[in-house]
């Protein structure tokens, strides 16, 4: 185990044994100090990972600092607004995901169950609610949520507001179904109204300059995120431990800050370096799809050297399994220790892109901040009809030239899983196989790893069989 991993494991154990807001605040105060953070960052071999961890700790430390004005926010809000209002954002759903990684989800879920949250509900929300009840999460000053992309946040945030006596500081930003002029107007009016009200309650004046600045930074971060994604369209070798599914917090919660720019700029340069290495090594991802498997016969015919992983192939005797198979990952992943990604890696499968990292919104106009942020929200593929999501997925699949798609069907995520049939059929029309993997992102007791691995193996055999030499 590397140094960074050791530090993380130790922190994890400490938190597990001291499940208390004040303790967490103290830990963050220590590791959030610049020299400590720099030393911690130096333990990472991947610069992307380093900046991700530094930015994450900084952000979470801010939210635990009682001197800051803290606002809980649901995942798909435009966080440019938070930063323009000098609010320290705290994302309960994302932190709910952290409880899985920290090994404390059992306790937070148990607490939620004791308070009559039915086990049929999404564990991100249940775990977050349990963590709030256990006084693990920081005390907010405001709670801002949206029905984008699901119904749950509206209720869980309200219950959190009740717990803290902040019902008057709870805001639901009602995201319309369609993306048209009247929706933009309706949504922009809400964003402005909420911003004005928060300023009034904070004793400040609304400063449009801060909004403009946040939007300019957001545009800069967007540009670097797109550049990093473009690199990944060709990249087959990644820094050790790189996982695009870990970048949720900077991608969403830090939009509008310099930290998001730094994270994605770093990612771009690091991955670009790897791409150059890949090209210098004349390493190409070759492999000819079998004729008749849908008519896609894309062939990299520049060079014939295959990428051979240091691990042997799955041994199914199919030479096509030596090619790195590119996977598009939909939704999120199990955040507890599991072997899914090991199995993929060991069989030359690489998640080359994930839905959560897709830049879905246009360049924002700083001169029209509320309208721009409304456009950003309405552009989200998870808003409105599932066809929006299908269109985005098909584009990603084409742009990244994927060999297959894996959709993690997280328990209780009805907006996502309800569209699975349409997504699968749409991909089938493009001759792209899709695996719908049933599981739970946080609760390992609600997930059968054995079953998931078996299904994954079966899927890999199907994809492997589509290649021949």
């Amino acid at each position, binding site marked *: 185990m590397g140094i960074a991993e050791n530090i993380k494991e130790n922190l994890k154990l400490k938190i597990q044994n001291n499940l208390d807001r004040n303790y967490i605040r103290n830990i963050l105060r220590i590791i959030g100090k610049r020299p400590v953070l720099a030393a911690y960052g130096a333990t990472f071999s991947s610069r992307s990972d380093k900046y991700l961890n530094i930015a994450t700790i900084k952000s979470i430390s801010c939210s635990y600092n009682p001197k800051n004005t803290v606002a809980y926010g649901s995942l798909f809000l435009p966080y440019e607004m938070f930063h323009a209002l000098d609010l320290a954002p705290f994302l309960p759903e994302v932190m709910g995901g952290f409880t899985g990684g920290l090994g404390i989800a059992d306790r937070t879920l148990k607490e939620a169950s004791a*308070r*009559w*949250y*039915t086990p*049929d*509900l999404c564990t991100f929300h249940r775990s977050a609610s349990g963590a709030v009840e256990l006084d693990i999460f920081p005390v907010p000053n405001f709670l801002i949520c949206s*029905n984008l992309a*699901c*119904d*749950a946040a*509206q*209720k*869980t945030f*309200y*219950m959190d507001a*009740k717990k803290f006596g902040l*019902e008057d500081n709870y805001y*639901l930003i*009602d995201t*319309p*179904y*369609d993306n048209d002029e*009247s*929706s933009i107007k*309706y949504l922009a*009016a*809400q964003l402005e*109204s909420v911003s004005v009200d928060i300023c009034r309650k904070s004793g400040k004046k609304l400063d449009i300059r801060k909004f403009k600045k946040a939007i300019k930074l957001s545009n800069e971060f967007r540009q670097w995120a797109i550049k990093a994604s473009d690199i990944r369209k060709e990249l087959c070798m990644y820094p050790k431990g790189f996982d695009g599914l870990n970048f949720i917090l900077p991608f969403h919660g830090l939009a509008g800050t310099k930290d998001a720019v730094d994270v994605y700029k770093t990612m771009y340069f690091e991955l670009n370096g790897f791409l150059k290495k890949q090209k210098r090594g004349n390493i190409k991802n070759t492999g000819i799809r079998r004729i008749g498997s849908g008519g896609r016969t894309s062939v990299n015919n520049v060079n014939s050297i295959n990428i051979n992983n240091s691990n042997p192939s799955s041994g199914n005797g199919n030479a096509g399994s030596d090619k790195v198979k590119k996977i598009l990952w939909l939704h999120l992943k199990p955040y507890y220790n599991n072997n899914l990604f090991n199995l993929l890696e060991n069989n030359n499968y690489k998640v080359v892109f994930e839905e959560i990292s897709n830049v879905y919104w246009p360049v924002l106009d700083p001169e029209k901040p509320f309208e721009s942020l409304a456009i950003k929200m309405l552009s989200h593929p998870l808003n*409105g*009809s*599932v*066809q929006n999501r299908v269109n985005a997925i098909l584009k990603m699949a084409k742009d990244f030239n994927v060999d297959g798609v894996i959709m993690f*069907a997280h*328990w*209780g995520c*009805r*907006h996502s*899983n*309800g*569209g*699975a*049939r*349409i997504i699968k059929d749409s991909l089938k029309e493009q001759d792209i196989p899709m695996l719908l993997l049933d599981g739970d992102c946080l609760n390992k007791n609600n997930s059968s790893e054995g079953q998931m691995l078996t299904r994954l193996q079966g899927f890999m055999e199907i994809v492997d069989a589509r290649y021949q030499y």
Partner: protein
Amino acid sequence: MVTENNVPAFSQFIKNGKISALPKAGWLCTYTPEEIIIANGFWPVRITGRQKAKKAEGYFPINFCPFIKSSMEDLLASGDELSAVIVTNSCDGMRRFYDIASKYIPDLPFFMLDVPRNQNEFAVRYFANNILKMSAFLETISGRKMLLPDLTSAQEICNEKRLLLKKLSNFFRNDQKVIGARNYFNILITSMTEEPGCFNTDLRSYLEYIESQSRHNQETPAIESGDVGSRQIPEIMILGNFIDEERLWEIFDELDCKISADDLCSSSRYFENIIQSGNFSNIFGRKQELPNGEISIDRLLRDIAVRQLFKPQCMRMANLNGKLEEINKNIVKNKIKGIIYISQKFCDNTLLFYPLLREKLNDKNIPSLFIEIEHNNLSVGQIKTRIQAFLEII
């Protein structure tokens, strides 16, 4: 079925229902304004998930709203019975239902009515605009334009239905055994599926009959609300989402309890509140009238939007504190001793509201019973035992 005092069930009373030649438009959620459907020349028919899901299972995940699956089954079997279907974005499940149904039943036109979650002027204006889009959709199917007289006439029919159902509800609350729980909830479902004009006529006759029976039985010693002799009948409130289970309502007919209030998608949330002229102006203090005092379609649409958004709330609405207040008012007004909270499985909006409600009820020392059911798959024995035990507690 005959209830106490020999009042026949509504379905027996109305033996020869009139057949209407109007084309049918299906709808699912009470936030759908039926007046728009009627004004466009259609017969609004609520899709109630009569069929048990079989083929529909292949379209949705396992842990998905059973009512939606049954509704899909209804649509798959509907052939050309329906000319159009209006779906609302009442929840994540409904959004996906719209996607799945419109893709895999391509010959049936679907419309998604976007219903806001907030109750403010922005939301009302936005919703009124969406209702206009819904009307435009129906116009393309009917081939004719909705005119002001169509809308005012439709509004009158819907308001009349609401008033009649309110009267029925008052009868039911005052003397449950006369109407009977099963009969009452069946009438409510019928009100959502029968041709409105015919239904109004039939229900009016039925209510007149019941009134005359009540007057006839006035010689019988008056029974104090909640008392049978020396035994107290517990007064309860039923709260939940779309519940259409005859066998469940039969349980209440068999047990000694009084449903003094009901708040379901299939009951009061459908008929409470009528459209009043000037609703919008009254609530938001804005003058809408045209200089010469005429009403316009736009003004009527805003009044409809207000009625829809300000009726007893579904748990999907943003104003959860408002919902708790609504329930509290019912508790106080009807002297409720206990609440039975019934939810379809996998209904996030309803299931997530319960912890909030329970906390509030604990503060008031009011016990509640939480029952999760699966549409068209009720375990009658189990539920009856649980309700019996609950009634004994209160």
